[in-house]
Structure formats: structure tokens, C-alpha cells
């Protein structure tokens, strides 16, 4: 599986006069982890919503390899191998298996007629995808919970369900919106291990929005810093950490910072 380069160029998003993203550009090198950081309201989630097709930018382009994602509907972008998780967990009712099988949607074919009639083709397809979903559940650290209703799981496990569901798309680019928000220290460490593990195991690119600087510094190969919708810094974690602009943006809004988690 070749992972194409994800290129965001001059993306601008406006909401009724408010400029949420102002000509933001960055490039995610294939197979790396790219962190997107910034104080609250910096436009990180907006950026994710543009990447996954939920928002249309006023100008600018998002390209995955040779494909222009900017005008594509979310489900088409998902089919191209861009999967994401949400800041506040969005799972469907039912078991972990049900949720992960939703992630297999674009990779499977069975339609209404084939499923209604239990055609052998549909039954076989379902069985194969179920086996793969079970593997991914183990990869994400959900072993033993495959048939548990999601509602009964702990917060950390539900976060892992979201990650596993995104992985079920066999994505080439994985967008993680605050994957460790609200977790305790042990759960954070575990989640970081899982992210690291799936990245090397599956060889995908990861774009990470996160407030936990420890996690960002540990996982990220490159960091883009946003503040009030503008890119104020870019570079390796070490470069960004010493950048005076970044320090100012963070210290200036340090009080608001704690609310994010």
C-alpha cells in the first residue's frame, strides 16, 4: 500500500465574517505523524473538518496524491482512505463489533437486496470483514471487548473503539482529533503506544490534533502551530518548542488551555 502525500494549500474557511482558517498550508509526508497544535479556537478542528469534507473552504485546496479532495463529499473522501476520529466520542449504538463493521462499509459491497436475501456472497463478505475487524480490535487494545455494547465500556475504551473504527477503513491517512483528551495518565501512555504501533504496523500517515504536549513531542515528526486561524510556526517538535511566536500564543491563552481536555 503506497501512502500518498496529503497537501493542504492556502486553505481559508470563514463563518459569517469570522475567519476560522486563514490561508493555512502544510504537507503531511507519507508515513509520518504530523501534529496540529494551537490554543483553543485556533482552527484545528475546523481544519480536520475541511480535510474530511465536512466543511468546504472558501479558497485553497486539499490534495491527496493526485486527487483533489476539496470539493468531494465526506463519504468519497473516506473511500479514498482518509479516516478520522472525533474530539467528543461519536459511536453508534450496539457492540464494538457493530461499530468496527461500520468502518468496513466502504470496503464491502453487500447492498440491500443481497443482504435481505442472505445471499452467500454477502454472508461470506460479512464473515471475512468480521475477522479483519477482530484483528483490528486487538491491534487497538480492545481484545475481549469485541462483543460488548459500546455503552458499557469505559471512556478510554470508547476512545479506542473510535480509533479502531477509523482503522477499519484501512486508511492511508488517519486523522486523530484529541485522541487522549479526558484520559488519565496510564490511559494516555497506552493510547500513545497504540498510535505508535498502528502507524508502524500499517505504515499510514497520521495527522494529530492534541493538547497534550508530551504526547505531541513524543509522537510527532512534524508540528504545525495554528493561532487564530493562522499558521504561526512549523517544524520539528524541537524547533517549534523554542519558537518565540509559539511561546507567546500559548502563554497568552494559558488559562483557556486547561478547558480543552
Amino acid at each position, binding site marked *: 500500500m503506497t501512502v500518498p502525500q496529503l497537501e493542504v494549500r492556502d486553505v481559508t474557511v470563514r463563518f459569517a465574517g469570522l475567519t476560522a482558517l486563514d490561508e493555512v498550508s502544510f504537507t503531511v509526508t507519507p508515513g509520518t505523524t504530523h501534529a496540529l497544535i494551537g490554543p483553543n479556537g485556533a482552527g484545528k478542528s475546523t481544519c480536520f473538518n475541511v480535510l474530511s469534507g465536512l466543511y468546504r473552504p472558501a479558497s485553497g485546496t486539499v490534495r491527496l496524491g493526485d486527487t483533489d479532495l476539496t470539493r468531494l463529499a465526506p463519504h468519497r473522501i473516506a473511500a479514498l482512505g482518509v479516516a478520522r476520529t472525533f474530539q467528543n466520542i*461519536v459511536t453508534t449504538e450496539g457492540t464494538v463489533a457493530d461499530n468496527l*463493521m461500520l468502518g468496513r462499509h466502504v470496503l464491502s459491497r*453487500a447492498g*440491500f437486496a443481497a443482504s435481505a436475501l442472505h445471499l452467500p456472497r454477502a454472508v461470506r463478505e460479512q464473515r471475512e470483514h468480521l475477522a479483519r475487524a477482530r484483528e483490528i480490535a486487538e491491534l487497538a487494545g480492545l*481484545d*475481549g471487548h469485541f462483543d460488548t455494547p459500546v455503552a458499557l465500556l469505559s*471512556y478510554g475504551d470508547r476512545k479506542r473503539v473510535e480509533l479502531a473504527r477509523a482503522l477499519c477503513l484501512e486508511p492511508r491517512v488517519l486523522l486523530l482529533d484529541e485522541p487522549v483528551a479526558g484520559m488519565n495518565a496510564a490511559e494516555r501512555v497506552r493510547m500513545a503506544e497504540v498510535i505508535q504501533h498502528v502507524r508502524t504496523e500499517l505504515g499510514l500517515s497520521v495527522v494529530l490534533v492534541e493538547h497534550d504536549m508530551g504526547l505531541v513531542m513524543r509522537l510527532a515528526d512534524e508540528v504545525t502551530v495554528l493561532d487564530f486561524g493562522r499558521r504561526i510556526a512549523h517544524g520539528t517538535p524541537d524547533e517549534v518548542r523554542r519558537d518565540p511566536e509559539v511561546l507567546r500564543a500559548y502563554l497568552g491563552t494559558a488559562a483557556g488551555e486547561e478547558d480543552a*481536555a
Partner: protein
Amino acid sequence: MSDRRYLKPAAAVALALVLCLPPFYLDAFWLRIGLFSVAAAIGAVGLSLLSGTAGQLSLGHAFFLAVGAYGYTWLAGDPGPGLPTALAAVLAVLLAGVAGGLFSPVAGRLRGVYLGVATLALVFLGHHLLLTADSVTGGFNGRSVPPLTLGGFGFTADDPELTVLGVPFGAEERLWFLGLALFGLTWFTARGLLRSRPGRALAALRDSETAAAVMGVDVARYRSAAFVVSSMYAGLAGVLLALAFRRVVPDYFSLALSVDYLAMIVIGGLGSVAGATAGAVFVTALPLLMTRYADQLPLVATPGTEDGGVGPTEAARYLYGAAIVVILLYAPDGLHGLARRVRARLRPHPAPAEQTPASTVPSAPAVRPKEHTP
């Protein structure tokens, strides 16, 4: 474990056999109750798929039932093309599906209560059409329904004469088996849908359209597909109802019928095939039973008398109104959820045994103070 694997199919076969018995023991009254219940169950499964699974509120189910019932009557009848009845039945179901599909531009743009009100318009539109398009629908008086004939076998009293094990098979007995077969088909297909890719996509729509879209579900397509499939089940129910009534009249397909179907799926439990069936039987059979036994029930007036009691149909409505309130308060997941909980309580032993290894395997600090503030 291996014993349990055969338990379910065995139970299904046993149930099917038991359901074949009524025509040999019960009279036409009970068979008719059964037939109406089965027809309602088919329609309720369709609505459950739409409103329960896909989360799209529809008050227009009566319209799609009418399309099935009148579609069959017109296609098989005179005036009308006078097609072979079996073909007319299939076409009527497809016609209902098409009607659902035609509504999808509206369904695709509206959510929640707004969608409910839009579907409400369908009922009024349909009712108006049924009253005014005389040449097709027969107007206020409706039309008589041509009986179904399958390969020379008529679902009527005497075409051909048929006696099984000493029981003469009239229209009710024959239609009972037809109803069972169609219900079996509904059960089979709806379970298949719900437990596979399309069903999960529909459930994802209900829980979050954003998440569904990001997971690759074509939201607009699945929203309209839900309407099409649900309308086809409604159409099938309409055909069966028409055959059971032998006459279709506009006033039957009113808003009250749509509300009855909503009551069925709420009482039964949203999004469950078994629940929709149970709810359908409850809502359909109750008024019929109360009418039959009105003279023996306290506070219920015998039909046609003026002794100041409540009429049996109204009494039945009070009862299922009360049932809905009780269910919403104490068992929001309906009869289906209630049954599941009772089952879980009846065999408490395997449950903890399964849970213990599952809860010890993952990370130890599973219990954790809530640390995130809003």
C-alpha cells in the same frame, strides 16, 4: 455450545409448525385477527426500519399502505389493466417502493419533526386522491379487491374446493397461510438487512449523520433507500390487508392508521423485528378482541347499545395509549427490550462468567475519577 447452536433453528421450526395449527382449530374470527395482525406486523417492520433503525420519523406510513392496497386492486382489477393477480401483487409492492423513492428529495432535506410533518402531508394528499380519483380508486365507496390466484389456486372460499384433514379451507384459512409465508419472508429479509452492511449504515445515520458520512456512508442515498425499503414493506402489508378486507376504502388509510403504526413500533421497541411484530399484534388484536368480548368487560359498552359505557374501539385506544405511556416511562426500549432483560435475569449464571475474564484483561486502572471538566 454445540447444543445451543441447533436450539434457535429448532425453535423456529417448532414455532412455524405451531403457527400452521390455528386454521384447524380456530374459527374465521380468530383467523381474521391473526391475518390482520400479520399484515400489520409486516407494515410495522417496515416502519421500524425507517423510524427505529434509520431514525426518520414518518407519519406517512398509511399512504404507502394505501399505495400497496390500491395498487394491487387497480392493477388486478377492472377498471384497471386486469393483470394476473400474483403479478399485480408484486407490482403493487414495487409501486409502493417507487412512491417512497419519489418522496426522497423531501426526505433527504428534512430531519426529525419537520420530516414527520412533511410525511403527514402525504397522508392528506393520499386521502384526497383516493376520494377524488374515482376511475382508479372507486372514490368514497372504495373498490372490491380481486382475490389472489396463484397458479390456479384461488385464495377464496371455493376455488377450488379444498378440505384438509376434515377442515374445509375457506378464504380465511388459505389467506392465513399466505400471511404466514409473507411474514416469514419479511422476517427473513428484515433480519438480513438489519444485521449486515446496509442495516449498520442506517443505524449510523440515526446516531450521527456526520460520523456516518465520515465512515463512508453516502448519507443522501441511504436516507432515501430507507424510505424505499420501508415503503415496500408497507406496500406488501397493504396488499395483504386488501386481500383480507376484500374491499378497500379511503377512510381506512387515514392519519389514525399512521399513528397506529407508530404506536406499534414504540410499544414493540424501535428497530427490532420481533418488537415490531409484538407491537403490531397488540395494537391490531386489542380493539378486535374488545369488540368481541365487549359484553363481558366492565365499563365497555356493547356495540350498538346506548348504556353509557365507552365503546370497545375507544376503550382499546385508551388501553394502548396507556400502554405507550407506561412503556415510555418504564421500558423505553419496548417489549423487545423488556423481553431481553427478563431473559438476561432468568439465566444470571453464564453472564458473570463471561464478564469476569473480559473485565480483567484490559488495563487495571479501569476505574478512574472523572477528570475532564466541561
